[in-house]
């Protein structure tokens, strides 16, 4: 993307004011998206984003500048701005000698989406529209979106690191609106993978569409969700966001270091039910949060965060790992070249337990069964979190009964982790997510087996 001699000169220039570390992050991303709504392909959109972000660290201060001007003078100007912002203690520029070739180290995807015709992408959406509408006359509106991107990344720093990656993503989403005597209801499904077009050889997109419509129609007969604290069973593959919010963010070392996490100082302690083993793994082939290298150039890896309920490790980026004298964990990520990296999750999931999922429902006298969770958020300092349930049912006498209208669930992370009292043996990954932190969104994955939380607050309106 950029000549290595130029990268070396830019990094050397960035340390001219005495900074101890400088990094160059370059990306070149091409993307295509298509949207269908109201029975029409509304538009096909293609875009290109490319640019470079330069980070300079002097003491505890980070300077950052970015530019879309990839010429050597443009890069040197950005290096100058970042160095001025970091204001090192003086001294000369460092000589930078890069090792490695900056090429991706993992195999390329099967069929790169930019080589697939736009007509094929549009046809996918038309099939989704047709399938979603075929489910029933109650379906009054369908919207669907397709998106793909191919991002080439190059990271180099004054430690001599030179690493590259090619990140290909495909995403599909469908939402359906059903109308009935009780008003309108919605259903939503999505799939996202770090694979090429070959994913559509194995995934039936029309099933995804029918599922969205089924959800919307089911909710037409939903009653208001209960209000109060109840046992909640969460279906496999739909509730990984629970762990993302309840403890994932709290295990990010930047928040831990500032004392803004309830999990600060808890390493080696029992923080969850002994049933729970939580892993963050950026290497899982094809998953939405998967990367070859993180956005600081380090290989992603599988990190066990909680083992049998005991907190074993936090997640780290360059700054936090350097300060604590340990190896990075491959969790330094950023939204784009316009953003500073920080500690982020990749694919975060709970490993299988031993319970039969049917037994979990049967063992629940009165509670809520959540078949699909929406987004959520957490206050890491208090551990209080919420997430939305977008498909849920009442459990009465050990059986799943009436569908429920949408609502939020709320709880406290450390408490909920301890309250997990049954864990299924049916692990599944969930749909693609976008995790927001400090104004930056990055793609993440999550997963879990069916499980039960003994007590969660269900935010409905029914007594």
């Amino acid at each position, binding site marked *: 993307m950029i000549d290595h001699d130029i990268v070396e000169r830019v990094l050397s220039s960035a340390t001219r004011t005495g900074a101890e570390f400088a990094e160059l992050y370059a990306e070149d991303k091409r993307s295509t998206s298509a949207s269908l709504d109201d029975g*029409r*392909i*509304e*538009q*096909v*959109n*293609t*875009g*290109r*984003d*490319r*640019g470079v972000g330069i980070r300079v660290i002097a*003491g505890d*201060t*980070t*300077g*950052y*500048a*970015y*530019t879309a001007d990839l010429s050597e003078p443009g890069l040197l100007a950005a290096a100058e701005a*970042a160095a001025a*912002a970091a*204001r090192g203690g003086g001294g000369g520029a460092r000589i930078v000698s890069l090792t490695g070739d900056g090429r991706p180290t993992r195999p390329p995807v099967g069929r790169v989406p930019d080589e697939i015709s*736009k*007509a094929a992408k*549009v046809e996918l959406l038309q099939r989704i529209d047709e399938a979603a509408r075929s489910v029933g006359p109650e379906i009054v*509106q369908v919207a669907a979106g397709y998106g793909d991107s191919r991002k080439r990344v190059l990271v180099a720093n004054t430690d001599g690191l030179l690493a590259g990656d090619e990140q290909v993503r495909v995403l599909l989403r469908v939402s359906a*609106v059903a109308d009935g005597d009780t008003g*309108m*209801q*919605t259903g939503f499904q999505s799939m996202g993978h770090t694979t090429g077009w070959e994913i559509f050889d194995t995934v039936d997109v029309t099933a995804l569409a029918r599922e969205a419509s089924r959800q919307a129609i089911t909710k037409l007969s939903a009653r208001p969700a209960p*209000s*109060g*604290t109840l046992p909640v069973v969460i279906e496999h593959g739909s509730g990984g966001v629970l762990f993302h919010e309840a403890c994932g963010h709290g295990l990010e070392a930047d928040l831990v270091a*500032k*004392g803004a996490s*309830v999990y600060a100082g808890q390493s080696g302690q029992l923080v969850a039910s002994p049933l729970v083993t939580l892993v963050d793994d950026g290497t899982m082939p094809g998953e939405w949060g998967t990367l070859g290298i993180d956005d600081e150039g380090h290989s992603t890896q599988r990190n066990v965060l909680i083992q049998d309920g005991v907190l074993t490790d936090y997640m780290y980026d360059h700054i936090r790992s350097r300060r604590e004298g340990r190896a990075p964990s491959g969790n330094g990520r950023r939204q784009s070249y316009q953003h*500073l990296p920080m500690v982020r999750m990749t694919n975060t999931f709970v490993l299988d337990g031993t319970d039969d999922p049917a037994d979990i429902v049967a063992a629940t006298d009165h509670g809520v069964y959540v078949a699909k969770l*929406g*987004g*959520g*958020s957490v*206050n890491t*300092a*208090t551990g209080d*979190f*919420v*997430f*939305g349930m*977008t498909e849920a049912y009442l459990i009465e006498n050990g059986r799943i009964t009436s569908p429920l209208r*949408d*609502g*939020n*669930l*709320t*709880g406290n992370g450390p408490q909920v982790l301890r309250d997990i009292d049954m864990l299924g043996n049916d692990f599944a990954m969930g749909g693609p997510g976008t995790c927001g932190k400090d104004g930056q969104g990055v793609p993440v994955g999550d997963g879990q087996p069916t499980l039960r939380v003994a007590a969660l*607050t269900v*935010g*409905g*309106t029914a007594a």
Partner: protein
Amino acid sequence: MSELVSIADRIVAAAAPGEQVEAFVARGGETEIRVYEGQIEHYVSAQSEGIGVRIIRDGRTGFAYAGALTDAEEVLAEARSNVEFSTVDEWAGLAVDDGVETTRLELWNEMLAETAADDKIALALELERLSASFDDRVRVDDANYVDMYGESAVATTTGIRRSGRENGCYLSVSTLANQDGETQTGFGFSVGRSLGDLDAERAGRDASDRATRLLGATKPASGRLTVVFDPLVTAQFLAILASTLNGEAVVKGRSLFRDRLDSEIASPMFGLIDDPTDARAYSASEVDGEGLATRRNELIRDGVLQQFVHSSYSARRAGTTSTANAVRGGFASTPGVGALALQPVPGTRPQAEIISGIDHGLLVQSVSGIHSGVNAISGDFSTGAAGLMIRGGEVAEPVREFTIASTLQKMLVDVIEVGADLEWLPMRAAGVTLVIDDVTLSGA
């Protein structure tokens, strides 16, 4: 600025016969300074630019963008090649100037543009120091100074040709209050068009008070009660309500108020206006995302739904005229529809006086998960919250880890008072104290 206009002009001039072409060209930059424990934690200085081109031919739309001003030809060619894949839409078309006069607004402050970096750093450090100074249980998680500028030009083959620029700055601070092993969080902010507008003391005091007020908070008992939304919470509520008044949602059958024009959808006490020509609004602007002059639109008057907000597309489809509510997220996408600068019609009494008349209620200081727990199509409303109970007309114990729930339809009808305290906030809606009856609290 003239550089952006000339790029837009050149793209539009390249339109082929039978094509409508719109070029949107933008450039912007920001400075972000975060301090921590008396040191600069990071200093980000950045610029970005880009071009977005929309082409409509025979009712079909294509779009492309690039994050570089040098790529105009490639973007135009890409947009053109995307046209053939869309479906013919008889209402597709660009905006046409409707003769509405532009309200001139002072959105550019030269003083801010010339402010030295050291002054910005000093203000961020002052914010951090002040925030921790009001209460010794409080420390600062992060304190930030941010400023940004943006300039853009839009031109079309239908005769639109506009350009403008604006800048602004803000302070934001997050705090942690600790007591007896418990931690609570708070935040504060201040927004302005120059450093002189920024009130570090107020931002710091708000952040300190919000955190300490919640110390000792417990999970409240479930039940139904009257809730009082703080202005910031009301503004978030209004932003969701606005999505039901969106003309595109209406024409596509997704608005729960689609058949309710001219009927009573809210308490007679409730009024709502969208007015981007009001210079007090943080999101004030002279033109909308399609280049039409913005205007004041009354959406709800005395509880009666007056009109929806429209872009030229949704208006054409609805058989009406654009209210100049096209919203553009940047150069990378085509404009959508949305409210630009909402303001509720204020009542007469301040918050304290309103609370003094409530026997059993809840003052909602913050909500969380409003994006996940509210379904604007079905109207189901459920959100996590934190705040203070109201007992016998007085603010009482703090509460947290609970939800409040109702439906949007019912909440509008259940509005029993609107405060006098209209507050301008760094979002597309202003806030006000809003009192809503019969809301379900789910807690212990």
